């Protein structure tokens, strides 16, 4: 009887030991640095917006080009035969692929804080890239900033949101 009790205690001891091994091994898993992922996506957005496109007029930088695509989508910038909206889509795709081909992205451009009406001109929301990234369950990183764009002497705040998901 005493030996049976000892045996049961021994089984408990082995179970505790196995549990300890599992817990410790799970703790040792490599933790993906959250800070790095956020910094990467934030820098990606800001760097792309600041980059010079090579076009002139309203499209000197990517930020200007997005402003043009949002406020005057059918305008054609100097140095290009394409309308701003098409040019913005092409340019963003080109830069995003140059940075990292293994990611899915979507730029959402919306009217920013303090937005005033454009008198039936312009758009109020556009997106470039793969909008399926916003679906539930997709592990994505999001960065957001506000850019200023001038149209007919008025300054407009435009909110640019970038969502990125990395392919494994």
């Amino acid at each position, binding site marked *: 009887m005493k030996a049976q009790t000892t045996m049961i205690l021994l089984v408990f001891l082995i179970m505790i*030991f196995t549990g300890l091994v599992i817990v410790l091994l799970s703790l040792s898993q490599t933790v993906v640095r959250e800070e*790095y992922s956020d910094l990467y996506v934030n820098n990606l957005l800001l760097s792309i917006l600041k980059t010079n496109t090579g076009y002139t007029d309203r499209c000197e930088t990517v930020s200007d080009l997005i402003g043009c695509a949002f406020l005057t989508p059918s305008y054609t910038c100097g140095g290009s035969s394409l309308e701003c909206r098409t040019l913005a889509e092409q340019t963003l795709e080109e830069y995003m692929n140059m940075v990292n081909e293994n990611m899915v992205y979507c730029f959402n451009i919306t009217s920013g804080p303090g937005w005033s009406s454009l008198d039936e001109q312009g758009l109020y929301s556009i997106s470039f890239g793969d909008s399926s990234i916003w679906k539930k369950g997709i592990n994505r990183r999001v960065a957001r900033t506000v850019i200023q764009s001038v149209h007919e002497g008025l300054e407009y705040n435009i909110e640019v949101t970038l969502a990125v998901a990395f392919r494994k």
Partner: protein
Amino acid sequence: MKSQAGLMEYLLMTFFIVVVIVAIVLFLGWWSVMEMNLEQKKIIDERAFFLLKYSGNSPYFTREGWVLDDAKLNAVKALGENFCEKLRGVFGSGWFLEVRILDENPEVDCTYTNYPDCNHWVLCEPKSSGKEGYIYTIPVNVYRNVFRRYDIAILTSGVYA
């Protein structure tokens, strides 16, 4: 006879308990060695990440936060070992920085003679030294002083294990 069987049971139990205790001691010993290795890797990883953040914001390399200056990169590269030696006081040894402008041109290392017709800088210990390392990359801008424009680039920081 009964007492002999009881004695055998006790001996068997004692043996099992000793085996389990030895296994626990061995496991904990192995675990602490693993933890030490992990801690060492974490420290190297921290160094690589710190190097990335430092180089993206240091006045040695940048014009403003995360905007590198191609003239400064060239000047730092020209200083060579002297500059690296100074920074080893901050970052320790065995690290490198790499900047590659993302354009369609083939990779051309920047030197004093070919600047600004180049798109690649490697500072301090070169990446191809064959050692295992911790590497971080991040998109940044590089200001091209001669062309007066901002290009998109990838900044890579690495620390060797």
